[in-house]
């Protein structure tokens, strides 16, 4: 479960908070679209939820763990339970695709044999297995995005966050990805997908979090607060 109570986010060196008065609850195993115009705060909210920044004020619970004042080891353990597909993919260019995707499992101390099996299974499913030993920088945007998706899915996270995960994918791949998200939700994963793609939202209707000017749009979010 994700719970925010009057949370604000103010990055260092920025005068005004980029998020403010955020209060929302998302039960475990549910799906939300994260919508809003550019600059509304979608990426900032995702950064907050991936524990890439600490709230300036308010209370935030992730997977029933209070984040405010949590120790570094608690935050580290929480991060291992969150999968994230960033808009800019955030792959390590010096490592090959296999090592990038294997990282979440290695951090959990899994055996290399298991890791090899699981990594190739997910790369196969996303049609990037032939590039397992290539560097991400040699791949196309769509292939890099699929590698980033593979890395987010490989650990079977309890929370999956994705920032425009289909913008470099073909329609058929986007539909397969949404089907995968549905499978994860069925297994109890909370999934939040930020997108500008109205067609995608129309094809898969679901509750949404609408942001405007760094806060929840009061007219669009009555049901989720």
């Amino acid at each position, binding site marked *: 479960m994700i719970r925010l109570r009057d949370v604000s986010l103010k990055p260092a060196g920025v005068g005004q908070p980029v998020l403010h008065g955020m209060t929302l609850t998302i039960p475990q195993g549910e799906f939300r679209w994260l919508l809003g115009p550019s600059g509304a705060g979608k990426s900032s909210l995702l950064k907050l939820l991936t524990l890439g920044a600490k709230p300036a004020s308010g209370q935030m619970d992730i997977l029933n763990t209070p984040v405010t004042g949590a120790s570094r080891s608690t935050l580290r353990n929480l*991060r*291992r339970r969150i999968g994230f597909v960033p808009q800019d993919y*955030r792959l390590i260019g010096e490592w090959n695709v296999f090592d990038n995707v294997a990282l979440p499992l290695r*951090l959990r101390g899994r055996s290399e044999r298991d890791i090899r099996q699981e990594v190739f299974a997910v790369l196969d499913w996303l049609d990037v297995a032939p590039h397992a030993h290539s560097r991400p920088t040699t791949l196309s945007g769509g292939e890099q995005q699929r590698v980033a998706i593979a890395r987010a899915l490989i650990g079977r996270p309890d929370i999956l966050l994705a920032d425009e995960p289909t913008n470099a994918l073909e329609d058929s791949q986007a539909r397969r990805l949404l089907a995968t998200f549905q499978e994860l939700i069925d297994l109890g994963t909370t999934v939040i997908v930020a997108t500008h793609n109205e067609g995608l939202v129309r094809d898969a209707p679901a509750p949404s979090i609408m942001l405007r000017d760094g806060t929840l749009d009061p007219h669009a979010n009555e049901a989720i607060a």
Partner: protein
Amino acid sequence: MSRRVSPGLRSGSLPLLVALMTLLAGLALAGLTGVQALADGWAQAARSAATIEIPTDIPNASDRTDALIHALKALPGVTNLQKLSTDKVQDLLAPWLGQPTDARKGLPGLSLPTVLIVAHTPDANLGSTVHDTLPEAIVQEDMQWGQRLEHLGTSLVGCAWLAVVLIAAIAVLSIGITVRRSVAAQKRAVEIVHSLGAGDFTISSHIAGRAALLSFMGGVAGLVLLTPLTTSLATTLAPFTHQATVPSTFPTTLDGWWTTLRILPLSLLKELGALPVIAALLGWITAQGVVLVWLRRLP
């Protein structure tokens, strides 16, 4: 397949830096050993010598001098006694009094004292024996010089240690700067790994392990660079260690290396051998500290 969980350390210059630092530290340690040996030798020599001056214009000077020489020879702790000849005394005083035109007549208007040089152990009671036997004699213990030399030796040893400590400090600083630059250059990769749940210690240990390995390699390279200087020092020291033959500065066999190096004190060889390990340890500790501090900026 490598088990990658964190970016490593990017640095081609670290082994070179550590090699140069090891070379400097090795030179300082060799210097330290030499200075220590020299200071000990000076102090030992100065502590065990005394000069006795006996005026020659006192009654029965010759007989009483012989009596004193006899008493001193019988004194426990006196290891050697030498009476300087008149010529020798004149030679010693020549810089102040000038050379007489006729050596047999001495300097006009001056009666030169008889001078005894006594080598003794520190516990020999020289003063009271001389006072009892010939009160007019003046005993000049070189102990005071011994103390001065001891202080000088201690200061030199202190300076040598200071050089070793400074070299270690510069090594730590160099490693710290190198690691800091490497982490900054890989900031994005470190942030990604951190965001996926890598612990601070996991990241820092990975980088520190690499820093330790590179430092160790640099340390070994530094020892190799130091070898010609070490063997050269050994061949220089050989005459002082009563070696029958002077060993080769550049031996070609393993036995030859051992023959050359064993002239050096074992403690110095041990210290030199420990340098790569110390370099690796400093590299590991410094990298851990730098990376852990850097990671504190991440949430």
